[in-house]
């Protein structure tokens, strides 16, 4: 059987006010980017908890993008402060646990940055394609002999 080309599964959390608008602008401007991304619209990037990110990897996401307003532009004033703090921490945790932190990407994308959105998706998809499928979270029960 011919080996199927690896198509990364990428999940993106986009804040409603900036990054989702930036993604819409990319559409209005007809900027083309790979179709691997699936977007979940959230009110604020601060809605995204580490649980959500871990759940995405648990469900075999190859990459997770979290995008929000630039610091200072947040519709909720400082919601994205929390995003930044949480994401940096989860990145470090994933790395230490043996998962490439490049699979988790945080970006600030404004409502005017359609070009940036398309660019980030292109680049991120390429990065993940290069990294290959993410290692599964599934545990492998040890056989008695391995103990």
């Amino acid at each position, binding site marked *: 059987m011919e080996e199927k080309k690896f198509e990364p599964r990428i999940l993106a959390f986009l804040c409603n006010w900036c990054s989702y608008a930036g993604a819409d602008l990319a559409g209005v401007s007809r900027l083309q980017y790979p179709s691997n991304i699936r977007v979940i619209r*959230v009110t604020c990037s601060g809605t995204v908890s580490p649980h959500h990110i871990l759940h995405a990897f648990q469900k075999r996401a190859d990459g997770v993008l979290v995008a929000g307003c630039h610091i200072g532009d947040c519709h909720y004033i400082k919601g994205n402060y929390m995003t930044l703090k949480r994401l940096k921490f989860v990145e470090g945790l994933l790395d230490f646990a043996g998962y490439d932190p490049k699979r988790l990407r945080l970006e600030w994308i404004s409502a005017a*940055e359609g070009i940036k959105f398309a660019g980030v998706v292109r680049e991120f998809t390429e990065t993940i394609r290069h990294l290959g499928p993410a290692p599964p979270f599934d545990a492998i029960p040890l056989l008695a002999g391995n103990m």
Partner: protein
Amino acid sequence: MSNSSQNLVGSVMVVGGGIAGVQAALDLADTGFYVYIIESSEAIGGVMSALDKTFPTNDCSMCILSPKLVECGRHPNIEIITLAEVQSVAGKAGNFQVKVFQRARFIDMDKCIACGACAEKCPRKVANQYNLGLNKRKAAYVKYPQAVPLKYAIDKDHCIYFEKGKCRACEKFCPTNAVNFEDTDREITLNVGSIILAPGLQPFDPTSFDSYGYARHPNVITAMELERILSPSGPTRGKLIRPSDGGEPERIAWLQCVGSRDINHCDNGYCSAVCCTYAIKEAVVAKEHIKGSLDTAIFYIDMRTHGKDFEKYYNRAKQSGVRFIKARISIVFPVYETGNLFIRYTDGAGRRVEEEFDMIVLSVGLETSPAALRLAERLGIELDDGRFALTSPFRPVTTTRPGIFVCGAFQGPKDIPQSVMEASAAAAETATLLAPARASLVREAVEFEEVDVAGEEPRIGVFVCHCGVNIGSVVNVPAVKEYAKTLHYVEYVEENLFSCSQDTQDTMKEVIAKHKLNRIVVASCSPRTHEPLFQQTIREAGLNKYLFEMANIRDQNSWVHQAEPDAATGKAKDLVRMAVAKVGLQQPLEETKLPVTKSGLVIGGGVAGMEAALTLADQGYPVTVVEKEDVLGGHARKLLTAWTGEPIASFLEELIQRVQAHPIITMRLNSEVKEVKGFVGNFSTTVEADGIEEQIPHGVAIIAAGAHFHKPTEYCYGENDRIYLSLELDEAIRERCDAVVQANSAVFIQCVGSREPERPYCSRVCCTHSIKNALRLKEINPQMDVAILYRDIRTYGLREGLYRKARRKGVMFIRFNVDRKPQVEIVANELRITVFDLTLQRSILLKPGILTLASAITASKTESLAKLFKVPLNPEGFFLEAHMKLRPVDFATDGVYVAGLAHWPKPTEECIAQAKAAAARAARVLAKDFIAAGGAVAVVDKKICCGCQSCLGCCPFEAVSYLEQEARCEINQAVCKGCGTCGAACPSEAITLLGLSNQQIYKQIDEGLSG
């Protein structure tokens, strides 16, 4: 009620759809007035929409503006009339008849779905004026991608059909038959109670400055052109390149005061007030674009960073390597081989220097456009010396014609926050004038009977849209439809040519009833633009509006994966599956109504506090004013005149009298706020006076607690009675003190305690104040030698006229450096001042009769007040507003507003404008009978909450409180804005953001990854 008030019309015309017009319209529409926005171009947004970033926070301009534009576009009580201008006005205040001329658009706005097919097919390219001609657009075009209304237009002057009588390609390809070549110009007559003028500004056109060669040298550009170049959605897609060869510049110079402070090349004697700070912004942003290597130099006369946090912005720019050179450049020389430019100037040490740059940016000033001048003429309002609408400092937004108000740059050159403040102030003046007619013409939202579906199993209807060919040409819509039928809980699926069309809306209502659908998914375009429309439809069908979800298969699918139809179809299926899964978990959400206490509390009895109180009370809302002193008036009691020369005393006397006589204003002198309970619409505040406590219920609070004047410990202050502070000199002049009247010479020292590490800000008023007093001294004794020792003269706006006058009258201006401040000694009762004159490069000894120190304005002790109202202070102790640009009088905490010196140092007229603005914002709350609570907000499940308070500090709006008794957290449904940051902080997932629960997110993750 008198006859005249019965004739009051409850609608308002706002002329101009820039940020000022938009703000005035929103404030009025939210206060119960019907608003027409008359916009001359194809869409609202004005100059702000074309800016890249905004100072001093470097916020993305479009990001912060766009939500306001969308709100305007959607507001049931705002009607936007584009391509229109006012022809004539008849009638009087309270009842005007306005003739409006509207140019034909040739596109039916009701039919246009902004797909862009017309522009794509249009064969004619024309210079794109929105990008100042830096690139091309088509003759069928949309002004800019985020335009409101998002509708195309046909440029008649360039359209091939109008030129040659054939083409009509746009018409052929328009999927909705929106193109209408038969469209004609029309005249509309509108009946309104009041008019607010916000026609905005026109950047100065430097073509006439031959010596700068703007017209000849492509690499000499205006600051506005640079904004477009820097903008990520601009002609170069945010790449900083020079126009001549597209190369990356290595050296850029900004030349300040082009078309400002200049009565030789142009007639703009005033300072444009914004150019210094925008040049700093552009230099900093340009440096970010070209990392590290870009040399930036700003050539200035005086750096005028007098706004809130601008001085720190200036200091940061210096640290980041932006060069600041004090020199006025008169000629730009071209280097023809390279396209470079060189300039000559004299540096600080007196040496002649020649420098070459790759690009030169002209920091052009702001002026009134010919169209606005025409408007003023048609309306019969008077203009001032600078050709701005004439206003008095005591009524800063009132024009010379009753019932017509003004805000923004047409009132005088100014920045965005000041424009926004004035816009709200103009709204307040209008609301006061038309108070009896409030709510007479607004369209109330219709309530629909809601079917209770809470306990039912989901029955989901899915509508998949072709959007003409926009989706259907890439995505296999029938396949998506068939797929949707297989999904759990999906009972009904159909495909539409246009899901947003009126007939589909009607069908949707029918099938909801027929198939007993209780949840709807529409797979089409973006929820950001269309969700409200569909939500309205399902509400009309009796469904709770939250039982709705969109799958964005156009903007984020068919438009961006045009070459991958299979993948796009697969993605569309995934997006539909995610939406179905999410909506299946959605429960109807209730919005409850909480009554509003229709009264206000104002803290501070100075000019700002009294103006705010009067503005609310004149609209019919009772107000209590809490003043800690035993008199009203604050600092204004000492101030002699406004900068224009109008005496303060008589104004203040009248103001106090009006406040005291007002039937619904209650005064509490010698009083202090002790405790604040409640939230927007429902506060209860404890005020203490002479040991007696009183509970005051109120719906809103305005903090106008004032500020102090810094008492210097330098320059021998307090050691001699001939050394004054500015306000003390006012008093001495008023009382004709011998020391002042008989003095042969006077010296002023500027920036005493301002612009120093301890207080890194400009106190904004001192330059004007000292110059005003210098002129007064010259009037008392024309022979008196008067010298002002300064660092930068900051007579912004029309105040520049005072500075010019002072120079003409022989006031000496001696510039010093902060590292080498003047030395003051008292020798045998003689004042001796030694100052190192930067221009002469030597020390000068002055022995004046009197010395005045222009000391800083410092924050009052307001920490406890800030804590009580849960609002923040900035590092200098001034109150910190919700947003520096667009919410200059609001706090993040709803229902609390700020005005006057408590916010930042500012002159009387700005205090008054801000006070009125605060009252306008507050009136938005008081005009409502109820405030809505609930909906898509966060709730705490108290059974799960362990009271750890991890969420409490994560709320930007102070909506979370800790209940001591239960040891649990609680979220105030009226205060929560639904960001969900608290939920992500809760370790036990005890918090649910309704409409976006953890379960819904998990489910979307599952479905998004299971394709």
